[in-house]
Structure formats: C-alpha cells, structure tokens
C-alpha cells in the first residue's frame, strides 16, 4: 500500500483485546478469500463479532459495515492494547481492508495479526504509545499521516504522535512480503 498518502475520513473506535473472532467471526471462515465473489463478504462481516454495546465506542451499537453492505464508511480504526489477538486467520486484516479501511491505530498488536497486516499488504498497523481510544468518538473526522507518524482528530483538534513502522514499513510500502522479497532479490 502507499504509505506516503494521508488517509482522511471517519474513525471507528474499539477497546482493548479486540481478538480475531470479534474482527471476523469463525462462522464466516468458510468463504474463500481467493474467490473474488466470496472475498467481498469479509467486508460485510468485518468487526461483526464485537459485542453490540462495545461496537463503535463510546456510544456503542454502531455497525462497522451496515447490514447488507460490503463497504464500511470508516477509514481508520482506533483501538486499545493487544489488537488482533487470538487466531492466525489472515481473514482478519483482510476483512478490515476489504471493507475499505486501510489503517488501524492501536496501543499494541498481537504478533500474528501485525505480521499478517504487513506481509499481506492489507492495512497499516500504526502504534501510539499512549492510550488514545478514549480521546476519539466513533464518527469523528480524522487525518492519518503514516509517513510523518501523526494522527489528528479533526473534530476535536487533538494530535497524537505515532511510532515509526520501522522495517515493517518497507514491506508494507512494497505491497507485502512477495513484493518486498522481489525488491530485495529474495525471489
């Protein structure tokens, strides 16, 4: 993905320990992500396992993707610690990206989810050292500058510094592990 453009749009807010079962419930894993017609259903069901009261904090009861739609109106997810914990299903970052959301800003990530975001080239797993999900409301307008490492809440005016993606940023910018391996002569 192009990590040099700014991502502007609405934010979807989630809490701590959002696991992959909440990001894409297991019952939808029989869809084959390699089949274009089936792949779009991951966008429909992205984040559908989050309990209703916690869906789109702080108000809750906000669906990431509306019923019967395939795309989300949210451009960025802001979340707490340990985002993407649990299973190794690559369907999780794929579902978020398939819904049209290409960046997450969380306090921390589980290892396999982070790796899948990068190696599959799905979405940018940005990290902010402080807890920020209580400083955003679902629906706030935000601007994320991945290259500069800044997330702005345009609605409130607050600004947050992000950690550099480091080596992982190079892989993501290349498009994923295959493209990176080609660029570096591994493939």
């Amino acid at each position, binding site marked *: 993905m192009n990590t040099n453009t700014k991502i502007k749009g609405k934010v979807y807010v989630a809490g701590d320990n959002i*696991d992959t079962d909440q990001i894409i419930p*297991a019952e939808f894993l029989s869809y084959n992500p390699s089949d274009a017609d089936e792949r779009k259903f991951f966008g429909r069901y992205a984040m559908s396992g989050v309990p209703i009261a916690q869906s789109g904090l702080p108000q809750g009861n906000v669906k990431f993707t509306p019923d019967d739609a395939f795309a989300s109106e949210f451009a960025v997810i802001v979340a707490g610690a340990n985002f993407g914990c649990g299973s190794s299903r690559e369907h999780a970052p794929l579902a978020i990206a398939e819904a049209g959301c290409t960046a997450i800003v969380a306090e921390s990530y589980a290892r396999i989810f982070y790796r899948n975001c990068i190696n599959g080239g799905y979405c940018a797993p940005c990290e902010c050292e402080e807890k920020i999900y209580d400083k955003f409301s679902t629906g706030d307008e935000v601007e994320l500058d991945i290259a500069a490492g800044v997330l702005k809440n345009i609605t409130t005016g607050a600004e947050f510094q992000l950690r550099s993606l480091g080596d992982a940023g190079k892989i993501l910018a290349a498009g994923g592990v295959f493209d990176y391996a080609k660029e570096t002569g591994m493939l």
Partner: protein
Amino acid sequence: MGMTITEKIMARHAGRSDVTPGENIWCDIDVLMTHDICGPGTIGIFEERFGRDAKVFDPEKIVIVPDHYIFTADPRARRNIGILRDFAKRQGLRFFYDPDFIDIDSDGIPAPYADATTTSYRGVCHSALPQNGHTRPGEILLGTDSHTCTHGAFGELATGIGNTDAGFVMGTGKLWLKVPTTQKFVFNGELPPYLMAKDLILHVIGEIGFDGATYQAMEFTGDAVMSLNMEERCTICNMAIEAGGKSGIIAPDDVTIDYVNDRARENAPEFEIVESDSDAKYEAVCEFDVSKIEPTVAQPHCPDRRVLAREISDVKIDRSYIGSCTGGKTIDMIAAATVLDGQSVKVDTFIVPATTEVDCDLDSCKVNGKTLREIFVAAGCEVGPASCAACLGGPQDTFGRANKPVNVVSTTNRNFPGRMGHKEAGIFLASPLTAAASAITGYITDPREYYAPDKAVGLA
C-alpha cells in the same frame, strides 16, 4: 554469550552461527501445515504468485490436515475440502489426511467415518501432527493456525502464520522471521494429583497477562514440567499464544525422543537435539512452586481472568465441553473418565476426541475396568466425532456449539466473546478434571471433591 534453544534453532535454519533477538532473518522451514480454513486461501495465494502449474517447494514437507469444518452442512466447507483434495492430488503431497467419508457433491452434515482405525482422516491438526510423526526436535514447523505453538513441546520452533506467509513458504521453503526474546517459566516441585498441565498454563497466563509474552518465546522447564508426558507438555505450549507468545518450547529429553521415535514414519528425517546454553540470556525468569497452585479457571471473556475453581463454586454452568487440541487428547479423556466413572452429569456434556486415534482410545483405554466410552455414555455425556467442533464456534450446526447465551466450562483454549458461538455465552476455561467435576454438580467445581488418586494423571 550463550543462546537459548529458540535462538540456536533459528541460527541453524538461517545458516548462521549466532543470532540476536530483534533481528529479522530468512529461515529454512522444515514443515508447513495447513487445514481446511486457511488452506484454500493459502493455495490461492501460492497459485496467484507462483502460477497455477507451479510446484510446491517439497511435497514431503507440506502437511494438510482438514479438521475445522468437517461435520457441517455448510456447502462452502465441503467445497473447501474439494479444493484441498484437488491440490494435494495435483501436487503429489504425501501427507494429506483426507476426510474420505465426505462426498463433496452431497448435501447435509456428512456422516462420520464408519471406522476410526481405517479412515485417512485424522482430526485436529495439533494432535494429529505429533501422532503421525511430523514433530521433531530442532526443526522449524509453521502452520496456518495460531495454536501451532503446541509443537514447541517437542523442542522445536513452531508458530502460527497467515495465508500469505504460508503461500510464500509453499513456494520457497523459506520465510523471514523475527528472532524473539525469551521468557523462562520454571515449575518446581512434584505435580500434585489434582493438577494438570492446563492448570499450570492458566496460572502463567493469569500471572503475566493476556499480552504478557507478546512477540516472545516462552520456554518452560522445571521438575514438574519435565515429569509430564508429551500430551500434557503439548497442553502447556498450546496456550503460549494466549499470553501473546510467538512460541512455547520445552527442551527435548528421553520422553520426547521416545515419543518421536515411536511415531517416526519410514524416511523420516534425522533430527537434532538442541538445548539452551547455561549462560543464555532471558528477558525474564518466573519460578513457580507447583504445590502452591490449585485447580485454576479462566473466566469470561479473557484467558488471563484467572481464579481458583473453589473461589467460584457458586457459578452455575449450563454445559461442559471436553475436547480440542488443548483438552481433547487421550490423557484428557482419561482424566475426565476418572472423575466421571460411576457419576451422572447434571448438565449437557460434550465429549469430542481431538483425533481419530483418540476416538479409538475411547474404546481401548480403560479406567476401573471400563472403557472411556462406556464411562462417558453411562454418565450421560454426548460423544461426537473427532474434529475442532465447537472450540471455535464455527457454523451454526457444529456439534456442541453454544447457540444461546449459556455458561460453558470447557477444556479448550480461548474464551473471547463469541468464541464458542453466541457472543454472550460465558466460557470458563479449565482442566479436564475440573470440567468433569463441574459437569457432575452443574457448578464450577474443584476436582478434589470427586478425585483423590495418589499421583497426577499426566505423568510420563
């Protein structure tokens, strides 16, 4: 400076004499495992990137174990079995454990294997891999499943990866991996009879937290760990991921070597015993006295919400579930049967053998002169066919799935919202002893109320 077992294995697979935690290195991979959930996507990526006619890096090193959505009417699940079958045939894969009783052109829930001793189907990958000789000390095993960390019990580096990484390995036999730092967990003392490996790992996760080992290798040792049989060691490493760990690992000893040699197939590769140096550097070392640990439960909805079973004896449960790669092995079945012998369950109790081999053991292993199956049936349990079943919820028609907001005591590994089905179902993770004792009373129950043997059930 010495190296840990994990650092040594990674260095050897990268052709280096040493490595430093934090480095990203390209490693040669010994075994790649995938299953019916992630296999089709992995194959799709492999064929998109390398071509439909491309050959996998080594048809002897890719193991496909369908296990997740086997007994469901979901037509896509059946279709996915067809994709795996076709790929295994085209590629000439030696190790494809085909659920041969599934006709992909039929409808409805497939009738299970008629004979567990003759089907090519095996069941849950993390129990099937060791049983069928795919786990060896010193190797690197990657799988498209987060519980791949189970196989660290054999003294190898084993970790879960996504479809893209698996597609890459399928074509090249290599993958970049970050060298993790290691935390060491030492369990001292003699394991008391009422404890199982499940209690030890739930204790650790409660101690360090749900993300307490993120990006790290978790090395387990100490008298209590080394006294365990391989199935119990697998339970410990299986749940490393529940503390965020990249891997769990236990140094190989005679118990490991005997098991591996016993299960080795013809033409099995030679393996190398690797151990940590005495001056290896650890991020942290945690020591536990097992005589101070009691039967442990993780409350909904997080595996680190640790509590003692006896502290929540007022929590009413609606069902008990004994199964999965964590708690559906033969030793888990023996433990449950020991508690359930001569008793009647008060709540719906589901018994799911992890593999067809465990299913066979239900008829060949005896407790108090009765087979495990006889004990379970007499106690009023429902016994299902081998598979992942309701451990991860799955399709609505999955055996044992929590389709209502019920409380479940379960020998599985995760209790996130919706993990076993309904988002409001409360999953209490526990050992097979505790799950069986709770089935008898209908409340979370300390197994000591029903179980008083001389020694621990899971000793080697």
